[in-house]
């Protein structure tokens, strides 16, 4: 099942590249550099999803003390950190030619950086506590608290004056985007979601095996 998911994610990513570079037209104002959007936006969406899963799995762990919930939270946090790192890096690279700077302490960028650091802290916390039950309990609490930053990141563009543009798709009302660009974006969202799912399933399996080997 994991292997099939991996192949599905690979096919999705190839499809995403074809859509992003072959089907979607060159954007009129920004030129071809706008194609970074097909990487930046889907990875940001996947990061939100990953930390949402950490939140619910952490609640699940504190409620049931189930090892499966703890493993899911840990695997999802790891993947979330990876995807947030990619989002921030791709955004920074996109920012240089369009905004004229690699980085600015804008509300969206700052809250995303805080989110990245918080979940990096989550993973470090897991690493430094030796007793597994204690590590699971403390990180579950942190997984719930850190999730408060996720809506802050998303709504920061409405709540503060920012350089970052507001969402075009994940907002109420009609989507104002050419169909080919929207289609390319959605294919990439599906592809990166599949890749995230593959990473999480594979990581959950290795965590279970680790537990069996050490038992």
């Amino acid at each position, binding site marked *: 099942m994991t292997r099939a998911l991996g192949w599905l994610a690979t096919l999705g990513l190839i499809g995403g590249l074809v859509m992003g570079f072959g089907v979607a037209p060159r954007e009129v104002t920004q030129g071809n*550099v706008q*194609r*970074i959007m097909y990487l930046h936006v889907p990875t940001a969406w996947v990061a939100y999803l990953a930390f949402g899963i950490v939140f619910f799995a952490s609640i699940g762990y504190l409620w049931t003390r189930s090892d499966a919930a703890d493993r899911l939270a840990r695997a999802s946090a790891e993947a979330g950190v990876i995807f947030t790192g990619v989002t921030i890096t791709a955004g920074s690279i996109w920012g240089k*030619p369009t905004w004229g700077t690699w980085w600015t302490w804008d509300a969206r960028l700052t809250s995303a950086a805080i989110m990245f650091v918080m979940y990096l802290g989550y993973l470090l916390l897991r690493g430094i506590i030796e007793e597994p039950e204690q590590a699971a309990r403390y990180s579950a609490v942190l997984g719930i608290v850190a999730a408060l930053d996720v809506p802050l990141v998303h709504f920061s563009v409405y709540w503060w004056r920012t350089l970052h543009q507001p969402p075009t798709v994940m907002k109420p009302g009609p989507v104002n985007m050419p169909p080919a660009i929207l289609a390319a974006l959605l294919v990439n969202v599906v592809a990166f979601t599949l890749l995230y799912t593959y990473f999480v399933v594979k990581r959950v399996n290795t965590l279970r*095996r680790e537990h069996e080997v050490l038992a």
Partner: protein
Amino acid sequence: MADNWQFVAAAYGLAAAVLGGYWRRLVRLDRKLAAAQVRRRNRPADKIQ
């Protein structure tokens, strides 16, 4: 506006390196644990105790 293809290549290249690196880490870890499980299964019963 100029196309700035070098920025596009940098963004996609870095993403491929990071995501590919994580995938390789997972595959290696999986193989290592599978080997450890086999070793554990093959251990003589008297040594397990």
